[in-house]
């Protein structure tokens, strides 16, 4: 059987589960997990467009995610919970992300690719510091809570039965919350589909040529800097859109959920676990990591409790040390499975 097809089937199965998530998983926390997976698939896929298809490492992806989220949050907080402010905020976030992407890209992509990693890291840190310090505008460390469009409120009846009560389909109440989930799902699926199209388009072919042999591509006449900057721009705008959607879902935006370095590390892990340069791998990586984040931590808590009498071990096993084990797993993955899950499945037979 075609190995690429296996990866696609796995990824499409995940999308299928996400489509029916409100019916399959009716627990509040489970829906939370499903929505997070949707958003992170987009975030990781857009990052894969950058790292997997051009080979350049950016640490500013979370910053663009944050721009989108803060755009929506600030607008909704100050201008009210309508569609107008929503579009305005999202648009502003996207524009800021686009401008920053072009600026950073033109400044640093013409030098050494390795400068790019350092400069994006510095830019992201500055954004994080500014978001925490300009608290009158951004809510500072605490972030902001706000209400979203009334159609997304849990009390809103989307479908009603004959008596005017909220309609139940297969035991699920058709209220604003479910609508909001499908809103998140639809935008995420749409963006993911768009990125698949980009990768399959002539642009994707050029990108692969540049990744294989930069000097050669330049020799053929491709303007490498222009292509890289445009991919960086596409990735940044997509991340900002994902941020805006996530801010709508959470009804809260703060440094921890949308700007912190921990999220950047999550994205890196997801893209490496899934498989760089595969696009479909983003679905697998994001799903596994989000699931692990929600459920493995519980397990660590139990393990730390069980080893409470042994020195140091409970410290290492406590859920706070979650990142320690992720970091180790990450190093081992990059050493031994740089192709990630999707990449390893796809090339499995050749080895």
């Amino acid at each position, binding site marked *: 059987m075609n190995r690429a097809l296996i990866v696609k089937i796995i990824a499409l199965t995940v999308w299928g589960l996400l489509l029916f998530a409100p019916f399959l998983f009716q627990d509040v926390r489970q829906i939370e997990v499903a929505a997070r997976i949707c958003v992170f698939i987009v975030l990781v896929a857009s990052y894969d467009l950058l790292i997997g298809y051009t080979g350049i490492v950016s640490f500013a992806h979370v910053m663009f995610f944050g721009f989108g989220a803060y755009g929506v949050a600030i607008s909704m907080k100050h201008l009210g919970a309508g569609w107008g402010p929503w579009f305005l905020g999202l648009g502003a976030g996207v524009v800021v992300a686009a401008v920053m992407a072009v600026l950073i890209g033109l400044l640093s992509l013409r030098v050494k*690719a*390795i*400068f790019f990693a350092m400069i994006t890291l510095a830019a992201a840190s500055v954004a994080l510091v500014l978001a925490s*310090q300009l608290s009158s505008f951004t809510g500072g460390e605490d972030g902001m809570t706000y209400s979203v469009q009334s159609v997304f409120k849990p009390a809103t009846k989307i479908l009603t039965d004959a008596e005017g009560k909220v309609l139940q389909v297969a035991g699920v109440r058709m209220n604003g919350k479910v609508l909001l989930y499908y809103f998140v799902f639809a935008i995420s699926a749409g963006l993911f589909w768009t990125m698949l199209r980009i990768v399959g388009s002539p642009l994707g072919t050029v990108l692969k040529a540049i990744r294989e042999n930069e000097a050669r591509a330049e020799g053929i006449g491709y303007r490498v800097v222009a292509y890289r900057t445009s991919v960086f721009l596409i990735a940044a705008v997509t991340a900002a859109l994902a941020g805006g959607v996530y801010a709508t879902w959470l009804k809260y935006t703060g440094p921890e959920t949308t700007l912190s370095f921990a999220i950047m590390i999550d994205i890196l892990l997801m893209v490496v676990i899934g498989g760089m340069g595969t696009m479909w791998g983003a679905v697998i990586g994001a799903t596994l990591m989000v699931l692990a984040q929600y459920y493995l931590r519980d397990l660590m808590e139990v393990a730390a409790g069980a080893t409470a009498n042994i020195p140091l071990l409970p410290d290492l096993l406590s859920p706070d*040390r979650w990142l320690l084990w992720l970091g180790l797993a990450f190093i081992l993955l990059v050493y031994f499975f740089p192709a990630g899950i999707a990449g390893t499945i796809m090339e499995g037979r050749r080895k």
Partner: protein
Amino acid sequence: MGKLDRFGGVFLLPLIIAAVAFVLIGAPSSWLTLTIAGLSMGMMIFLMASGLSLVFGLMDVLNFGHSAFVSFGAFIAASVLAYFGGWLTSGNIALNILAFTLALAAAITFGAAAGWFFERVIVKPVYRDHLRQILITMGALIVAEQLILAVWGGSPINVPRPHFLEGTLIIGQSSLEIYRLFAFVLGAVVYAALYILLNRTRMGLLIRAGVENREMVEALGFRIDRIFIVVFMLGSALASLGGAMWAGYETIITPALGAQMMVIVFIVVIIGGLGSIQGTLLGALIVALMQNYVGFLAPKLALASNMLLMMAILLWRPSGLAPAVK
């Protein structure tokens, strides 16, 4: 192009920044205090950044985990100082100096050992593969930061200073902290030693040649990988020393220290240019002076101002102000 044009020009930048700041600040005494603080901070940042710059110049290896050496240096020095707390507060200068020396020595030793481990285990398998290098050293940084959290906990730690470095000198109306003066002198001594190592010894000759053209040094009969590990250990030891000094400068440290310093160190090496210690010193002084002046004039914009400065310099000189000849 004449040598003066190439170097004299950009090396005047710190002076220009200081002069502009003098006008903007207005009060000479505050200006002097800020300038001394900036210079001493610059020297400590130079210690942290020099290794990163040389390691990149020599092997094209960019170590994102470099700031872990800074954090470990700071925390180890803090622990040693706390352990010898009695010696520090005693009036006996000899005990003071001994405890402080032990703390710095512990940081340096750990830095060198950790550098050896890092180079062999983390970096060596991914020479010449920038993508995986960035990812793996970043992974190592996460692990190192988590280890610091596991060992020292997440809450701020007080760093006792030796008695003989406490206090201030009053010159006119400006007060100058003795610790800062000491940090400046220590940094200057290390810079001088590095300069002599690079310019007056055969080892330094090999390093400078290797930064320019690694392959040719090998074709002349030298093992550049053996030189490289020495440089890597030296660089991490200096980073730990910088961290140890920084701990005493801040007097309260948190595990976030590494991440904060990493950003500053990156800005420094990008501004200064990779591969040369002159460039690193220049970058460190510029960034530290800016940080102090802007921190005084508009506190919230200190880091952002350095970011803007970096962007401006990249526009002007894409490889930094004074990179190694390649």
